[in-house]
């Protein structure tokens, strides 16, 4: 690397430290809106009786839908977008997404999402030097069972 590293000791110290958990809700209208945006025609995402006939508790969440944080205008609402340190760059791009399911998430679920940074790395690409921040979020239901794990890589440049 020709440039000096932008990763400070403070940033490195944040790796592995869990952020305060947040609550996310999975509701029927949100499942339908998400499924519609992706173009699904499978009725399990739209018709609750049909979903139940296929063995689901309610409308299942399509791949990539992990509920919505409860919006409050006085609280940052998107986990993964509020870093525990000040970024040296002002612009962001999504670098990658990895979602693993252990059990289906369904409408009606209220999940606890706990995030932490698992990796920081630097790279120089066509758009210039970039910092890659990988955040892992686990989603547990009210019984404490882990239903899904999300890993997102945010590119700051």
């Amino acid at each position, binding site marked *: 690397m020709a440039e000096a590293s932008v990763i400070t000791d403070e940033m490195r110290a944040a790796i592995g430290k869990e952020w305060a958990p947040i609550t996310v809700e999975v509701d029927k209208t949100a499942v339908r*809106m998400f499924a519609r*945006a992706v*173009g699904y025609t499978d009725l399990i995402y739209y018709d609750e009786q049909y979903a139940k006939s296929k063995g689901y508790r309610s409308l299942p969440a399509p*791949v*990539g839908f992990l509920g919505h944080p409860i919006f409050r205008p006085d609280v940052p609402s998107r986990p993964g977008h509020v870093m525990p340190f000040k970024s040296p760059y002002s612009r962001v791009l999504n*670098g*990658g997404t990895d*979602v693993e*399911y252990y059990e289906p998430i369904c409408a009606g679920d209220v999940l606890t999402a706990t995030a932490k940074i698992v990796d920081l790395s630097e790279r120089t690409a066509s758009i210039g030097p970039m910092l890659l921040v990988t955040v892992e979020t686990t989603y547990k239901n009210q019984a404490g069972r882990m239903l899904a794990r999300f890993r997102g890589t945010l590119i700051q440049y």
Partner: protein
Amino acid sequence: MSEQVYFEDVQEGQEIPSLTEKCTSQRLVMWAAGSGDFYQIHYDKDFAQGTGLPNCITHGALKHALVGRLLHEWVGDQGRVKRVACQYRGMDIVNQDVICRGRITKKSQQDGENIVELEVWTETAQGQKTTPGTGVVSLPSRKQ
């Protein structure tokens, strides 16, 4: 949904049916609402160009979700999508086709489940792979 696919009927190296979705500005706005991602580079051309982009770009997470749909539609009612991972290596510009594809890399049995691993990706109409990744699904068996 198409006819149910079974574990015994698929082979390593086999490509699964592709999915093509034109990511119109309307779809990107629907995605913004559905996902809660309101970053302006996806629907405001002036804003996008102000950050150095040529035009509005398709959300990476939408491409991930489309790959999820590709797998969901392939595994059918009795299959399950267990994992979808992809990297956003190349940009897809608004109003272009996103073509989702997958190829089986491994079949195995784990904890009583019939697991199929796939290489998945999206490509442009010109054949440029912009979103490489991997998928894991389970399929029903004809024996059960």
